[in-house]
């Protein structure tokens, strides 16, 4: 599609891996994260949180806190000037709790003081009276209507049914039926930069907020509603973001910091510490999934029936969209003639759950891939063979009736994966680092059994279900110091994934200009949509490209260096093709824009006596349509695979009666370099004709298939059923 002429081809354009502008600063520790924000004369905000998962508030006494020298403000729900409710899909979450708290860690009051220590001490002086209530903690019971009703309208946030064909009739003739119930624990995004930001009151009565987030405009929309201010009075600028993975889609400090700044007339900084961060953002929905697969004796799928329960916790967040993903992607990347999938997302008094990399597809994949292995077993087939026989392809009709209209190389990914070399067998010179347990010296080979597992997954890319999903980009071209230079302005959040680099590459390719500056990301330009759903390169990349094309039109036959004093300045709003809503009864509809696919092969050594696991290899094949920045693509695949490995063997927020038992990195474990093996990665580039450059979102697919591949390998090594992730040593040893 590109019409770039020879002399316009850039050395650092699309398809290359130029150095990221933030790279060396981050490596040297010089990058300013939002927690580094500073303002003369600023105050420090702190949040008082509920210790109870469910309780009625009988009274709040802030007197003693206010009396503490150095304290400038102590605010409660009574001080929220606008609507004391916010939320991504439903405004159901109080900025500060009113009469009830619905989860442990729910904000009840906020304080501003001249020192963070003073602010913390002030929190201790606030007295809140609680009548503790019986929490709702079981998602299936919540669907059944048991327990307290936590919100008007009941405890079901959303139910999505999908009906394709006639599963009941198909079940009659099925020669092989496998069933299973699977469970996925609550995973945390575990980003390294805790929630933080700085709110600065402005002379016009408004406020400027600098914050680490994933979507400036949706934050702005919720903040102005809570503050009761017009949109132009609340301006947001992106602070340095230390990882996101979905955990920054919901508000954290945003309204609180603005409230305190407006109330005190002083800049207010808020930074959560690690423990508070576990209470300060949503997590991945824990899930219970009941599956039934029916097939012919040769392993060809006839039908799938599934009932999926996602625990959304105390507030809706993005539960509705997560439910739709788990439902529409519930049978996996397979051609299934008959399907009945029901997915429920519910309110409980567990921590609120929302977006996390993989977004509903992760939970479903653990179940349907476990089922495919069971099916392979029941049919006496190899796990790759059973998947290949059922692999969807371009032209396959999804359970929603949507016909996939771009490459869907599921069988090819599996074929490539299988062709990769296997790691060498264990043995040889004793090197503890290669063994389960590592240098902890738990085995010198005793009890160690190797296993291999495969999995493949599917993810929708971009926002679905008729969402008006667009981005805004402004591109300017002018001659600066005798050299053509372009500037790009968007509100799209760089969260560490490398978006700013890709946007620079696009401009270089389209305009043939080497010098490309990315302006600060803020709300003085239109909406860019969220940095989630693997969509930013697609949508904001698409918008930047479209703006470049307009600049190029304006440039006409001129070369950029001949512009003289002229400034070419174009702003565009760019949309991907529209999607449809799901039929509320049948779940039919062209709900998704694009599908992404990745497959993994895991090789594990399991100490079967101690239940310890060493993942020896975790290889991946993924179709990315077009590798816009090959190095960044590999980075996404490695990171996503590691996150999936984490869910397979260690990452879980453990909850008991609504209370988090391990809110720290001491006991919420994420993989280290000795847990994550080096990877073989095979990147396919089968262009999607509907997408800019043919690209396919990259970030989420590798997180999805990694988990079931690792668990399949552990099953192969141990013979254990392992129907829950993360797999703990006890599950393997049976003790």
């Amino acid at each position: 599609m590109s019409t770039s002429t020879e002399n316009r081809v850039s050395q650092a354009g699309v398809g290359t891996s130029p150095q990221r502008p933030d790279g060396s600063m981050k490596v040297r520790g010089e990058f300013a994260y939002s927690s580094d924000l500073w303002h003369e004369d600023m105050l420090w905000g702190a949040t008082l949180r509920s210790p109870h998962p469910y309780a009625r508030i009988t009274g709040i006494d802030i007197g003693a806190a206010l009396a503490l020298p150095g304290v400038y403000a102590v605010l409660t729900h009574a001080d929220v000037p606008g609507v004391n409710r916010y939320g991504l899909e439903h405004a159901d979450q109080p900025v500060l709790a009113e009469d009830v708290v619905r989860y442990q860690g729910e904000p009840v009051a906020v304080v501003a003081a001249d020192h963070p220590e003073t602010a913390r001490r002030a929190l201790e002086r606030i007295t809140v009276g609680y009548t503790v209530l019986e929490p709702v903690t079981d998602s299936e019971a919540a669907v059944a209507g048991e327990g307290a009703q936590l919100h008007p309208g009941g405890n079901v946030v959303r139910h999505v049914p999908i009906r394709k064909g006639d599963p009941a009739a198909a079940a009659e003739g099925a020669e092989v039926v496998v069933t299973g119930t699977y469970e996925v624990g609550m995973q945390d995004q575990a980003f390294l930069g805790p929630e933080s930001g700085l709110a600065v009151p402005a002379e016009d009565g408004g406020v400027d907020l600098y914050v680490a987030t994933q979507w400036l405009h949706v934050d702005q929309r919720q903040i102005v509603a809570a503050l009761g201010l017009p949109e132009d009075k609340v301006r947001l600028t992106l602070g340095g973001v230390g990882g996101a993975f979905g955990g920054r889609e919901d508000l954290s400090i945003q309204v609180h910091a603005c409230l305190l700044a407006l109330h005190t007339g002083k800049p207010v900084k808020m930074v959560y510490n690690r423990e508070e961060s576990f209470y300060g953002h949503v997590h991945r929905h824990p899930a219970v999934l009941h599956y039934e697969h029916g097939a012919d004796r040769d392993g060809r799928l006839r039908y799938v029936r599934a009932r999926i329960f996602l625990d959304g916790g105390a507030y809706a967040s993005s539960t509705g969209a997560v439910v739709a993903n788990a439902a529409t992607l519930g049978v996996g990347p397979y051609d299934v003639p008959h399907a009945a999938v029901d997915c429920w997302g519910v309110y409980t008094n567990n921590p609120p759950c929302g977006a996390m990399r993989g977004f509903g597809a992760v939970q479903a994949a653990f179940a349907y891939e476990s089922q495919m292995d069971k099916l392979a077993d029941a049919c006496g087939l190899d796990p790759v063979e059973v998947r290949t026989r059922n692999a969807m392809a371009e032209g396959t009709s999804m359970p929603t009736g949507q016909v996939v209209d771009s490459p869907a190389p599921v069988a090819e990914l599996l074929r490539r994966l299988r062709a990769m070399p296997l790691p060498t067998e264990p043995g040889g010179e004793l090197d503890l680092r290669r063994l389960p347990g590592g240098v902890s010296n738990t085995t010198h080979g005793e009890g160690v059994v190797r296993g291999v597992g495969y999995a493949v997954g599917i993810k929708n890319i971009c926002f679905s279900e008729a969402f008006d999903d667009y981005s805004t980009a402004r591109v300017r071209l002018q001659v600066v110091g005798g050299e053509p230079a372009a500037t790009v302005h968007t509100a799209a959040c760089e969260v560490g994934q490398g978006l700013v680099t890709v946007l620079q590459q696009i401009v270089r390719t389209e305009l043939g200009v080497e010098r490309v500056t990315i302006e600060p990301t803020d709300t003085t330009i239109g909406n860019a949509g969220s940095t989630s759903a693997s969509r930013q390169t697609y949508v904001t990349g698409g918008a930047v490209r479209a703006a470049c094309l307009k600049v190029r039109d304006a440039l006409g036959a001129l070369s950029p260096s001949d512009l003289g004093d002229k400034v070419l300045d174009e702003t565009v709003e760019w949309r991907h093709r529209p999607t449809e809503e799901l039929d509320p009864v049948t779940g039919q509809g062209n709900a998704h824009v694009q599908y992404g696919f990745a497959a993994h092969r895991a090789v594990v050594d399991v100490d079967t006596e101690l239940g310890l696991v060493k993942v020896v290899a975790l290889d991946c094949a993924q179709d990315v349509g077009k590798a816009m920045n090959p190095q960044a693509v590999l980075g996404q695949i490695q990171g996503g695979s590691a996150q999936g490995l984490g869910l397979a063997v260690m990452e879980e927020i453990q909850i008991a009666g609504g209370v988090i038992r391990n809110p720290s990195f001491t006991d919420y474990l994420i993989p280290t370099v000795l847990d994550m093996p080096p990877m073989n990665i095979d990147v396919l580039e089968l262009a999607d004709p509907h997408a800019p450059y043919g690209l396919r979102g990259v970030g989420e697919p590798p997180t999805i298939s990694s988990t079931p591949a690792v668990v399949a390998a552990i099953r192969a090594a141990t013979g254990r059923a392992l129907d829950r992730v993360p797999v703990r040593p006890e599950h393997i040893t049976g003790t």
Partner: protein
Amino acid sequence: MDFLRPATLDEALAVKAERPGAVPLAGGTDVMVELNFDHRRPEALLDLTGIGALAEWSITDGQVVLGAGVPYTRIIAELGDTLPGLAMAARTVGSPQIRNRGTVGGNLGAASPAGDTHPVLLAAGARIEVASVRGTRLVPAEEFYTGVKRNALDPDELITAVRLPAARGLEQFAKVGTRNAMVIAVCAFALVLHPERAGVGAAIGSAAPTPRRASEAERFLAAELPWDTPGALPDSLKRRFGELVAGATEPIDDVRGSAAYRRHALAVLARRTLTWAWNDHQERGKSCA
């Protein structure tokens, strides 16, 4: 909060006598976490890193005197052959950053049931050298751990060193964690065999309110090991030893693991470490012969 940084041990002891509430600071890898999490607000920190003598070690008459402030990295690099069990434990502590700063003195000061050096100190029969303006005393390791995160120090005392025999024995340490590096022990086990005097030291970590010796298992093994007979150990002996080690535990169910798993895993570790130590013993026998 005051920050005190004495240059000599005498100065430090004087401060500690005067201000028993001052919290000693060695590598800070426990102390700083407690301060950051606001679990502790001491009136003063007593930084011991200015006292050179605490960061030294020496060997006299086969006894190692290991200064309380020697970081794990140096134990691994400088004492790997002399104190192999302690070095094995040191290798499993935290991450490289933590091993660069963390010390045995700090591990003892914290006295966590999950501290990695404790099983080795117990199994090796170490004595903890503690000092105050009143004088110096030696506390046997098994008397040092008095409760969950409590130790035998008086408020005016500091740990100055650990004394333990340079390895004549055969030492093993193993620790179970749910991650392959930088993990707190779900349970840990240390074993020391002294063929020359038919002696056995065995101790567990993270499976009781304090680190403790598995005395019955020690006695059983000392009596039953065929010290002078070459060849592999019978499975029945290893199994019985494992059972006795598991029997010495008093584990709990927590986020890191279940009590039943801890018991099971310690039995496995006991059998395996015994096998490894015995194999080493056989090797030594061969090379001496």
